[in-house]
């Protein structure tokens, strides 16, 4: 596919394979759609290595980064992706928006649409908020993380990174370790990995990895040392300190003892096992510093790949919104 000068024929071809204006989650996507996004991201990846890191694909379009919940990494990644596609970008955060003045989410979004925003990238603390807006707006809505529900672009960049490094996803065994219950990253990864044929094992304290997750088609284990030698990828999730006041586990010290990827534990991993983390990492809690910076770590590749994946998502959804 030619991105720089997208021809009518490539547009037609892509419309056959992609017809969604919104990206709300991976649960609703087919494996073909997920693969199509990953293939489209392949084409965008090299844009970032060029002298001129910009293509005109979204020239004249307006993208609003609407972050009701704070984020730096995801917001800047979307912003850079949009700029590299030549879109005009504005950033609206919770504190600078009228939400703090009592305006409803619906009214704030309708105002953004009234100034002809084409793409709305939404980060929100409530599960379902992107779907709420997608049902009400003509603009594309891209979910940049909603509550503990989904974070589809994070999972897509995780899939992209695994596929890049290992050449495939089907048949691989992936462990997702940490706070699964409250994690939108975990849910989107589970949906995406299973659709693409991977085996998934969730690992963490029983309070944060309830057995109910088995009904989603994954395995649940509380014994990290048994799982580590069997997996091709470990995806570590940040342990959120704020959870502790609800007493989900007895403290970060005990967490590290039972579930932290320490130097010693990392020796259990296969030599080609990838170590991933969506960030921000807590060195010394869920992962030892040396392990995070070690040869098996692809944590920074994830960040780089996030740009290509988000460019692909904006390009595909932004193209549908106007046609």
């Amino acid at each position, binding site marked *: 596919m030619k991105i720089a000068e997208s021809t009518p024929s490539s547009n037609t071809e892509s419309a056959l394979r992609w017809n969604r204006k919104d990206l709300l989650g991976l*649960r609703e996507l087919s494996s073909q759609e997920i693969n199509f996004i990953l293939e489209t991201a392949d084409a965008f990846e090299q844009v970032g290595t060029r002298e001129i890191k910009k293509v005109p694909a979204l020239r004249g379009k307006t993208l609003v980064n609407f972050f009701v919940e704070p984020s730096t990494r995801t917001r800047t990644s979307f912003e850079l992706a949009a700029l590299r596609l030549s879109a005009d970008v504005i950033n609206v955060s919770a504190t600078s928006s009228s939400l703090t003045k009592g305006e*409803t989410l619906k009214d704030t979004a309708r105002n953004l649409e009234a100034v002809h925003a084409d793409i709305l990238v939404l980060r929100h603390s*409530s*599960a379902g*908020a992107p*779907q709420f807006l997608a049902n009400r707006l003509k603009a594309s809505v891209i979910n940049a993380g909603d*509550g*503990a529900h989904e974070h589809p672009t994070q999972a897509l960049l995780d899939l992209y990174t695994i596929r890049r490094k290992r050449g495939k996803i089907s048949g691989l065994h992936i462990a997702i370790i940490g706070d699964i219950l409250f994690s939108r990253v975990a849910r989107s990864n589970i949906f995406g990995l299973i659709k693409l044929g991977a085996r998934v094992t969730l690992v963490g304290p029983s309070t944060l990895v309830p057995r*109910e997750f088995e009904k989603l088609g994954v395995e649940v284990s509380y014994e990290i040392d048994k799982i580590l030698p069997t997996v091709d990828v470990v995806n570590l999730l940040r342990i959120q300190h704020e959870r502790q006041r*609800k007493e989900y586990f007895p403290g970060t010290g005990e967490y590290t003892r039972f579930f932290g990827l320490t130097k010693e534990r990392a020796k259990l991993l296969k030599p080609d096992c990838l170590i991933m983390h969506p960030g921000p990492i807590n060195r010394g809690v869920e992962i030892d510093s040396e392990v995070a910076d070690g040869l098996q770590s692809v944590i920074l590749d994830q960040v780089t790949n996030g740009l290509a994946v988000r460019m692909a998502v904006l390009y595909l959804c932004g193209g549908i919104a106007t046609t």
Partner: protein
Amino acid sequence: MSATIVRNGRVIDPANKRDEVGDVCIQDGKIVASKSEIRNPESEIEEVDASGLIVAPGLIDIHVHLREPGFGHKETMDSGTRAAAAGGFTTIVCMPNTSPAADNPSTITWIKERVASAACVNVLPTGAVSKNISGEELAPIGSLVQAGVVAITDDGHCIQNHELMRRAVEYARMVDVPVLDHCQDYNLVGNGVVNEGYWSTLLGLPGWPAAGEEVIVMRNILLAELCDHYIHCQHVTTAGSVRLLREARRRGVKISGEVCPHHIALTDEAIQNFDTNYKMNPPLRAQADVDALLEGIADGTLSILASDHAPHADFEKEVEFDAAPFGIIGLETELGLFVDLLVHKHRRVDIVRLIEMFTAEPAKLLKLEAGTLSVGAPADVTLLNPDLEWTVQIDKFESGSRNSPFDGWKLKGRAVQTIVGGKTVWELD
């Protein structure tokens, strides 16, 4: 002097074990034994032809949020009671979580005055158990009873302090009113908004575990035994609650439970599109819970049907799922849903028992003179057609709000005429 004869209907009056085709005669707002008791001349007797219809004592809904005082933008005495009449209800019991809360005699007096001027059906107020429904100190329960409340409840909230609840039940026994309880353990439920289970796990919505209800149902059983007084568990939703209530009622504990239509019509699968018209408290549960509720209704464990009619304005409901208020309206769909589901679809009770659960059972709990067609009783009568097929259209509702998930549902069974104190207050077009 007014007189009415409702002719040739199937008269079902469970309180008197009456089920026969016949007439119901009304003189000056009271039921009389026969036409010979009517003193009006023949030409001044209103005749209602009820042939092919069921003539029942006016239906009672013991769980309604009328929203006044304080929240007239959601519902008023006027719109709420018209909705009740359109649903076949002649008596409704309104909850005290208003603003100000109905935790003092003057608010009860205000409500009664509003009812007298604006309501088209009987409205019976409840009073709060605790001051400002905050679960910390007892409200003046005796004075509330003197002012006319038929029960006390902190509905919408639940007293967490078991000792305070114990004293409330003991005190309520002295002044002879039951305690109605919204069963929710705050620690177990936390910020839960949907049933904890498959769908909460999938969608990442905070879970409201069944045990959060069952712990309080168990608490209430123990306190009803300890205090030898009536506690009624509102909107029961879980299989565990049904099991606990069944066991306790077999032993004769003064405990009862009610069911709302949405908890048997829907499961938590309905939340998957984040539509806030499926957000209620307690939440929609799993199929196994629905099955247990149906079983509990069939064997008498759950003896009362109620709507938990909870109106909210569109701008309040049309927000993020977490942020939306709990609750849906129910008065105008309640009878249709229960007849359709309990009598026709699942065949768990016959129409006689269903009417009993809407009349004699709540009347017994609250010691009302309503809920029967006995001679001398208030002439509250509901005419219903259990086989009438109709489609729910929320834009035709009398209620001041539209927060219902049942728009477009095809139901079998509905009220066709509602008579309060001998006067027809609503009739199907």
